[in-house]
């Protein structure tokens, strides 16, 4: 190191030396002084004057010297600064002569050459540091560098202690003042790090390739601008029937995409590249054996190492597509069948509606006529008829009346069984008042109806609920015990879940446990017509109407003591 330093000083010094050199007149003075005795004694006055002159000159010289010294300090500081930079620069730096003898070099180079701290006085030839086999290249480099006016670059290996070090030499030359030979100044770049990265690359690449080939699909990379494929994994041989190399030769891969999907595929790739985004699309491709397969192409564009790259994975989804297609067909078929059935059902409903309309008109008209004529006959023949004949007429009339009720109830039942049900909050108390006023049998003193106020509101269909109330109340009145005034108590109760239960408690004949379920079925009667007249449809209408409004019905009863009917409907939120 010290040697280098010395050399460095030597190299940097000419200016300094020039600065330190006494001015030429000073030298002349000194010469004069030395020779003074020879001619200076000739005149003492002249001598004295001469001494004064010399003292003056000396003091000037002292001043100059001080000035120069302070300049030297500054120079020394910047010299050290540059020396340090030179020594520790991240590149090797050296000067050699025409034979390759190193005249000076920095510490970085010594380290690079495996000579740290070595600095002896011995001659160091660059050629000796070059790995065997590379010496001719070095000599050629040196030769060229001496003659070229532009820097010359060569790559070779240095022979360090146990290994060879790849380096790049960049050399230029200058004529050393006064010397005939040119000196070569060289920068030595260490390639080690770069080289190791390059040596490692093939291994990583092969690992990566093996990894990519295990992916269940074709991994590809394309030029994000031209959309030409630059890489295709070997899985493509299985999926599409062409080897990977086929695709990267610029065959125009898009011709293997189904004509109808081609533009969509290109658009997707362009979009992915433009938006730097992930994108998945499905399309059809044609294989080497002319089969059409469905593929899913998941692509992704990203900037990696300052470069925009577009990759993707192509997966064969033909089986899935087939299954989807089958599913779709099955669904379409089902839909078609449902539509058919629905229109059939609609037709049936229409038929039913016209049927019930004709029931209420056409069937009842002859019935009314029969009843009317029977009555008329009975009135006309009142004087002629004996008691049995009058009974027959009465039975005829009662039967036709019963048939009419039956028809009307069946109509009501069919009306509550179909059609839309719009549910809204209802005021139960108002509805009850209306029902009681509409039915004379429900008015006192024939019956005592007790309402436990306040009644909670319920959600229901007004006409349906009115029908339920009138049916339940008339039942309660109808099935009373002989000789007792019917008494009905109406109350409401909030049930868990927001429902409201409406209770109808009567003091009637009650219902046997085995009959309690039956009574809500259509045409179910648990009493003979002789005792209690009825069609057996009233409670079926109630059950159906409540069911249509989203509620339930039920009964609790003790035969001989009375029944407690209830119907449960969604309550009105308080």
């Amino acid at each position, binding site marked *: 190191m010290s040697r280098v330093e010395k050399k460095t000083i030597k190299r940097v010094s000419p200016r300094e030396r020039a600065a330190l050199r006494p001015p030429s007149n000073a030298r002349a003075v000194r010469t004069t002084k030395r020779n003074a005795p020879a001619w200076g004694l000739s005149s003492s006055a002249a001598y004295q004057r001469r001494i004064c002159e010399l003292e003056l000159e000396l003091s000037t010289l002292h001043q100059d010297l001080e000035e120069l010294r302070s300049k030297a300090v500054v120079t020394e500081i910047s010299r050290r600064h540059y020396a340090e930079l030179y020594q520790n620069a991240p590149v090797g730096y050296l000067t050699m002569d025409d034979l390759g003898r190193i005249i000076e070099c920095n510490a970085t180079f010594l380290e690079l050459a495996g000579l740290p701290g070595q600095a002896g006085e011995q001659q160091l030839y660059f050629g000796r540091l070059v790995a065997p086999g590379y010496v001719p290249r070095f000599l050629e480099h040196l030769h060229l560098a001496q003659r070229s006016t532009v820097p010359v670059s060569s790559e070779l290996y240095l022979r360090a202690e146990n290994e060879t070090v790849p380096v790049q030499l960049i050399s230029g030359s200058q004529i050393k003042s006064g010397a005939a030979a040119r000196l070569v100044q060289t920068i030595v770049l260490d390639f080690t790090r770069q080289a190791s990265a390059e040596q490692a690359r093939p291994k990583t690449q092969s690992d990566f390739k093996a990894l990519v080939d295990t992916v269940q699909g074709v991994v590809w990379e394309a030029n994000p601008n031209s959309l030409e494929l630059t890489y295709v994994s070997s899985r493509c041989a299985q999926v599409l029937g062409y080897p990977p190399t086929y695709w990267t030769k610029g065959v125009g891969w898009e011709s293997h995409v189904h004509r109808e999907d081609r533009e969509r595929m290109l658009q997707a790739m362009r979009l992915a590249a433009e938006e730097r985004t992930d994108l998945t699309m499905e399309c059809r491709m044609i294989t080497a054996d002319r089969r059409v397969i469905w593929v899913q192409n998941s692509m992704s564009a990203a900037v990696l190492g300052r470069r925009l790259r577009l990759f993707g994975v192509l997966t064969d989804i033909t089986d899935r597509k087939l299954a989807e297609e089958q599913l779709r067909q099955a669904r379409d078929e089902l839909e078609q069948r449902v539509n058919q059935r629905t229109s059939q059902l609609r037709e049936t409903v229409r038929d039913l509606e016209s049927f019930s*309309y004709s029931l209420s008109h056409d069937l009842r008209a002859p019935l009314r*006529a029969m009843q*009317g004529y029977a009555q008329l006959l009975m009135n006309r023949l009142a004087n002629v008829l004996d008691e049995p004949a009058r009974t027959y007429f009465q039975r005829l009339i009662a039967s*036709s009346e019963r048939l009419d009720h039956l028809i*009307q109830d069946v109509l009501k039942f069919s009306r509550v069984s179909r059609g839309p049900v719009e549910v809204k909050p209802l005021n139960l108390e108002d509805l009850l008042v209306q029902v009681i006023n509409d039915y004379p049998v429900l008015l006192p003193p024939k019956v005592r109806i007790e309402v436990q106020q306040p009644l909670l509101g319920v959600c229901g269909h007004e006409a349906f609920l009115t029908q339920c109330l009138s049916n339940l109340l008339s039942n309660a009145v109808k099935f009373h015990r002989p000789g007792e005034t019917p008494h009905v108590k109406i109350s409401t109760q909030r049930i868990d879940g927001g429902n409201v239960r409406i209770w109808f408690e009567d003091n009637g004949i009650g219902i046997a446990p085995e009959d309690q379920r039956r009574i809500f079925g259509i045409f179910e009667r648990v009493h003979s017509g002789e005792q209690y007249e009825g069609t057996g449809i009233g409670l079926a209408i109630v059950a159906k109407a409540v069911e249509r409004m989203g509620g339930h019905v039920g009964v609790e009863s003790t035969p001989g003591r009375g029944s407690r009917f209830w119907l449960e409907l969604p309550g009105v939120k308080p």
Partner: protein
Amino acid sequence: MSSDARTILLVEDDSNDVFFLQFAFESAGIGNPLQVVGDGQQAINYLAGTGQYADRSKYPFPVLVLLDLKLPVKMGLEVLRWVQNQPRLSNLLVIVLTSSADSNDVEKAYSLGARSYLVKPVSLNKRVEMARVIKNYWLELNRFPSALHASSNQGTNP
């Protein structure tokens, strides 16, 4: 009030019902002349005074129409709709007398201008009772608008 002006038009296709109504009217003591037509189109023709009904001396303009809904050719509701569209008949009193208690029919009839909606009673006695109510209310208590009988011979095509 001339006898012409007291005519009641019954639109009814069922001969039994016609018979019972006539019987009930008689029993109730309704003396108004009763004209009967058997389908909706004839009712329209009668009211318009076209064809055979052009002669108002034979077929006077009615003071009241009793209209069944279920009728051949043209249904009762169609007759109501036609009447509603005749500005000259805006004061005509039409009472629906039908066997249908369907709430849909009731609502439609009123919205098309029916003045009352009666369901045909089943028993003979109730028919007579109804005839009495009609007599008491519509024919005795009720005051008719005077413009009713103004339109007579100017036929309007249906």
